């Protein structure tokens, strides 16, 4: 009992810290560029790769641009892209899972075989090749992440709906003669909201990691726009001369993903 309480206490402590970290990161991304009014694109080749000074609190990058300003601008881009890609992936997954779970029969069989197949594809490998021909842009990046990350959501939504179909309240609605669409929209969909939220909390970190990896390879967000991933791509070239350029964006990605994962795990545990 005492051990159980201790475990529960550490868990809330860790989750609180994760929520706090995430809030700080989001506030940084939203109001950061408005408060810290240094242009992230202004280059000054007389101050290339300097350390922290009074004017440039985190120093400058390989083109003499203010590092803090770029990190804040990058936070906006990386978090937005991560969030949008997750919305696309979870939206697509929910749609496919809903159709499969509600229709049943051969439609379900076909969609689930497709889901299994999509899970067995080395997606990141194929995405790297496809983005290489398509030419990089934020739009193709979002489509690529969405098209390769919907399978988890589709599976859990379908599973949940199949379970719900057998529930007494759905049977009652059917017995009362409610049309299928009404049963779906009014009775079943509201019940899967928590499942979708958990799927979303799993989707954000993987979308952020994928965006950063693809932008690092030069296939995502394009310079001069800053994202944490493409900042690391620039930093790779100057790894020996200005190692700190590679440090900050990576740490920020790590912190973001770690916090969202911690919150996601807690949500999942809470649902049992």
């Amino acid at each position, binding site marked *: 009992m005492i*051990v159980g309480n*201790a*475990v529960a206490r*550490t868990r809330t402590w860790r989750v609180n810290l994760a929520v706090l970290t995430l809030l700080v990161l989001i506030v940084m991304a939203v109001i950061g560029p408005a408060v810290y009014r240094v242009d992230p694109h202004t280059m000054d080749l007389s101050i290339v790769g300097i350390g922290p000074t009074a004017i440039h609190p985190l120093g400058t990058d390989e083109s003499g641009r203010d590092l803090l300003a770029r990190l804040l601008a990058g936070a906006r881009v990386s978090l937005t892209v991560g969030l949008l890609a997750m919305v696309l992936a979870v939206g697509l997954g929910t749609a496919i899972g809903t159709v499969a779970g509600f229709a049943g029969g051969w439609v379900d069989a076909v969609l689930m*075989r*497709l889901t*299994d*197949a*999509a*899970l*067995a*594809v*080395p*997606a*990141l*490998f*194929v*995405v*790297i*090749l*496809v983005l*290489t*021909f*398509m*030419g990089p842009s934020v739009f193709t990046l979002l489509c690529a992440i969405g098209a390769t990350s919907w399978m988890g959501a589709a599976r859990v939504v379908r599973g949940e709906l199949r379970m719900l179909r057998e529930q007494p309240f759905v049977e009652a609605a059917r017995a009362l003669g409610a049309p299928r669409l009404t049963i779906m929209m009014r009775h079943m969909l509201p019940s899967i909201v928590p499942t979708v939220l958990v799927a979303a909390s799993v989707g954000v*970190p993987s979308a952020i*990691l994928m965006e*950063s*990896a693809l932008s*690092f*390879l030069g296939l995502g967000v394009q310079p001069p726009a800053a994202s944490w*991933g493409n900042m*690391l791509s620039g*930093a*790779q070239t100057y*790894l*020996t001369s200005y*190692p700190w350029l*590679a*440090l900050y*964006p*990576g740490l920020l*990605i*790590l912190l973001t*993903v*770690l916090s969202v*994962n*911690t919150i996601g795990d807690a949500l999942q545990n809470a649902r049992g």
Partner: protein
Amino acid sequence: MILFLVRRLGHGLFVLLLVSTVTFASMMAAPGGPSLLADPKLSVTERAAIETRLGLDQPATVQYTRWLGRAVRGDLGASFLYQTSSLATISARLPQTLLLAGTALLLTLGVGIPLGISAAARPGSFWDRFVTLSSGIALAVPAFWLGLMSILVFAVWARALPAGGAVTEGDVVGLADRVRHLLLPALVLAAAGCAEVVRYTRSAARTTLALPFIQAARARGISSRRVMWRHVLPHALLSVVNVIGLQLPRLVGGAAITETVFSWPGMGRLGVEAALGRDYPLVMAVTLVVSAGVVIASIVADVTQLLMDPRIRAT
């Protein structure tokens, strides 16, 4: 068992068809043609002659069915850029990727499973919390950043390991040199998968610990160490093998990124070079070979799982 294998192979072929169709369709839809045709010295008639020779003047569907027909017979065509058969180009690079991904997979299992079991042995202990926290961090680290940081620490500052490549140029290539080059990329590639294996093993072992046969083993006076490794481990492994099958596709994608960070001459970099040059046959061949590798490896994982489970083996 036979029926299972047939269904699994059918599924695998469907996966390959899906991947090749998507890759081909996006390649055709993409702006820009093969770099082979971009040479400004070519006259219009010469260009048309090359297009006819390579079949590029045909509609995309015709080109695809033609490619598919040849691929089924084992002919993946000749690379535009290298002027050799795609398979020959690939066979020079494939061993490097197999070496990298294989070593990473061995590390993932060899480190992940024992760590997971040892963490589950005393839940809530300092060791358990340490392992859980470290695996949480390893899951959140972008692999390419871990690569950059490890190059910085081990190659730039400590000068202990090489920063990239598979062998030292010009030297007589010894085993020690290969191992030194392999160490960092394999560790970086293994990190995230290893963390996931730790988590699954730990939770599977904890579920197993609650089962009656473990209590029975304890009641017979078997030491808790022996219970953990001889009774819990084999049972927990059944569900872990399943996770490995699911991880394989990501291992290959991760390998492509790790290859870029460490300038490792493998399939990922070959694929990107081919895609940049719009080398259609080579892109298709690389995609097909990599996907087939993943499909075969996951079938092997599934069959292993079946063979390991005496309840299924009996039937």
